[in-house]
């Protein structure tokens, strides 16, 4: 049993077993489920990180068959980095949820609708976690489809846990988009299997797909995954869903879930298709730029806190797609700066966005409202949440020494090297807009000197979870070199 085999089992099936505990056991054991899931994800991803640094990319032949007959797990730097950030965000969000949903041990399925929803947060979230970890390690087209469906169903269900009408409508729309997106992906899988007779990513990469059928397949899968990632023209479902979910759900959805389908897009376009077509890459970059500008402008116009953060997610996801055209400046070459820069942005966005959503959850928890006008003065009563929001926002905007800064700097450098001035302009303008909408929130929070009247104290753990995430986003910049080293194991073209 190699470390790859051991730790990949722990990281995928730990959360799955934890969801079994959370689902079937007494409510008193809900907390045990969350702890078990968090621990196994943290330990497993740490073990894999170490193994990847020591031995390079590894694999786990599930069932002992190996591709093309069976399913393989493929463990490289990209996947492990995503696993690790998921584990960190997930563990802290679980800590937050444990306080947010009240006393978990008293939740019963016979209770009010809200209580029933809270009762099922832990199992749904742990299943979602399993699916994310499964995606980051999968090396099989159809296996990715199944994990995507777990992800989509549990994510939509988490949105509807917030019982309001808006959340229900948003969850329905999210589920429909998610299902259609998965089916488009499945269509692509079917076409690729028809053409090449294999489902293994590695096998396909060795063949090098080209021709009309693989092109249609890639287009279908890209549209499906872009819809699930809320890339610019398909972004309309995201803000209501992410803003409507309960606070820990918002953090999970915005920080982690959209990265799952983004990960698949990267794997498909680069690892399998070897870059696809240059025109396609530029198109994705253009859509990403559109997302940056449009999302930021809309975020600036929002009057409710969680919606503002949700639109900011639309914008920040755009940066990840700007990476696509920069990664391959000319055929046969790939730009390491673009690769590490883009992925660092994805990672730091996960940490910063989770911190911001949790901090926003604290503020609206305290004042029972989500209007920006309602949180005025809240900074004086919730300094730690205010700090978390601010630090997270600055990390998003790319101020040093945050990880966002390192990521943007690497991305800009790769654009400079290849003299892509348009992308540089987009990145710069997007950064300015980010600062503007973060400052808008901070200004409201600092608005008055006295604290709001109808103020409810926030449990300490909820404040700590947000603050720790924000600190992690900032500290990541200081230790970015280690992450860069990790991300380069395997690189965009592992096979």
């Amino acid at each position: 049993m190699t470390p790859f085999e051991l730790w990949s089992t722990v990281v995928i099936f730990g959360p799955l077993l934890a969801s079994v505990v959370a689902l079937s056991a007494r409510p008193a054991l809900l907390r045990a489920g969350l702890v078990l899931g968090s621990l196994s994800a943290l330990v497993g991803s740490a073990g894999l990180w170490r193994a990847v640094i020591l031995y390079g990319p590894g694999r786990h032949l599930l069932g002992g068959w190996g591709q093309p007959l069976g399913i393989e797990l493929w463990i490289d730097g990209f996947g492990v980095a995503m696993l690790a950030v998921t584990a960190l965000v997930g563990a802290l969000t679980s800590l937050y949820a444990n306080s947010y949903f009240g006393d978990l041990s008293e939740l019963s399925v016979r209770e009010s609708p809200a209580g029933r929803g809270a009762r099922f947060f832990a199992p749904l979230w742990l299943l979602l976690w399993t699916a994310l970890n499964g995606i980051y390690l999968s090396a099989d087209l159809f296996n990715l489809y199944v994990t995507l469906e777990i992800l989509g169903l549990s994510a939509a269900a988490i949105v509807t846990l917030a019982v309001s009408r808006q959340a229900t409508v948003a969850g329905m729309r999210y589920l429909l988009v998610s299902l259609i997106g998965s089916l488009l992906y499945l269509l692509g899988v079917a076409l690729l299997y028809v053409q090449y007779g294999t489902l293994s990513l590695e096998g396909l990469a060795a063949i090098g797909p080209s021709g009309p059928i693989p092109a249609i397949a890639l287009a279908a899968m890209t549209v499906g995954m872009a819809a699930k990632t809320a890339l610019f023209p398909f972004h309309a479902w995201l803000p209501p869903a992410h803003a409507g979910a309960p606070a820990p759900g918002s953090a999970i959805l915005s920080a982690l879930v959209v990265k799952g389908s983004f990960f698949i897009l990267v794997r498909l376009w680069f690892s399998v298709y070897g870059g696809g077509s240059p025109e396609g890459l530029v198109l994705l970059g253009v859509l990403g730029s559109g997302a940056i500008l449009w999302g930021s402008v809309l975020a600036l116009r929002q009057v409710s806190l969680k919606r503002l953060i949700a639109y900011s997610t639309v914008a920040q996801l755009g940066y990840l797609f700007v990476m696509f055209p920069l990664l391959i400046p000319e055929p046969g070459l790939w730009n390491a700066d673009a690769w590490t820069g883009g992925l660092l942005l994805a990672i730091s966005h996960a940490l910063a966005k989770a911190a911001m959503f949790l901090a926003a959850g604290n503020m609206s928890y305290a004042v029972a409202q989500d209007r920006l006008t309602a949180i005025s003065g809240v900074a004086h009563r919730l300094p730690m949440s205010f700090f978390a929001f601010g630090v997270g926002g600055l990390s998003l905007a790319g101020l040093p020494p945050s990880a966002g800064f390192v990521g943007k700097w690497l991305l800009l450098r790769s654009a400079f090297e290849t003299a892509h001035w348009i992308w540089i302009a987009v990145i710069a303008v997007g950064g300015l807009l980010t600062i503007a909408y973060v400052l808008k929130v901070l200004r409201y929070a600092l608005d008055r000197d006295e604290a709001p009247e109808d103020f409810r104290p926030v449990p300490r753990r909820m404040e700590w979870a947000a603050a720790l995430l924000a600190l992690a986003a900032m500290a990541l910049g200081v230790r970015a070199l280690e992450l860069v080293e990790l991300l380069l194991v395997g690189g965009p073209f592992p096979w």
Partner: protein
Amino acid sequence: MTALGLLLDASVVLLLVALATRLLLTRHLFEAIVLFVSYGLTLSLAWVRLGAPNIALAEAALGAGVTGALFLNTYQRLAERIGDGAKSPLLEDDGSQDPPSWFKGLLGGGVILLGLGAGWALIGAGRRPAFLPHEIAARLPETGVQNPVTGVLLNFRGYDTLLEIAVLVAAMAGVWSLDRGSRRFGRARGEPDEDPVLHALTRFAVPVTVVTAVYLTWVGSTEPGGAFQAGSLLAGAGVLLTVAGILPPPTAASRPVRAMVAGGMAGFVLAGIAVLPLTGQFLHYPEGWAYPMILGIEALLTVSIAVVLVELFVDVPAVPEPDPALESIDPSGDPLGRALRGGEDS
């Protein structure tokens, strides 16, 4: 003979496309649902013609049976809601909310172009020899089963099947998390059903169903059959029993039910982990253990799937009455956390 076969295939295909088109374009919900069930049965015939009896079994039981029953059940809830004889967009969609016609036209044109392109590409696809089917056939003896589909599902690609159960469990947990008006289904426990005809049918059909399910689980390793088909059959028996008032409907409130739902998945994972120290890989069955382990997992899954499906069918579709506690939550705020703790201090 082959000409007749071709004619048969052509009729099945035409029927399929006609059913699909009509059911997607009609404005009457009930018609669409009945056509959907008919479509599922026709599709099952298509699988038979394509030489895939495994799928035909699953399609008839799950695609047509369980899914159709879910739709019927939901229709019933809507009909209850709108009351007698009333016309409502719930049941008769007049299309007034559909997107504008320029959108439809554009999308329709795009879809037709895409269809022509894909059809042309697939018809002209190069016929490179496939190696995987031969590989699977060659290594099937190592899997411990003789039905190649079962071999793929539970050995070669057992991980996919495990995650597929996780999809079912995720849907179940999601459904449980929705509020339900807990409308009781069928009769109360113990109360005899006064309909002797239904009772007689139940007494005949349920044993046949259960025997068939056990047979399908057992035979799944060599012939078409397996946990999913058997599980959905058992679910059919369960639905019949609850409808006739003989069994109480399973609900999320009962811990044994939740344990059974999660149990299949847990057993599968634990089996996969148990072999890890012996063989070093997840779900890599040790020499000679493949057949008993697969059979055990299939039996466990059959029960678990049956419970999930009965529960999905019986307990889901309820349109709850408006709940004043819910309506009072400020939708612009952070509803859930505050609502949950509302009792404490505010």
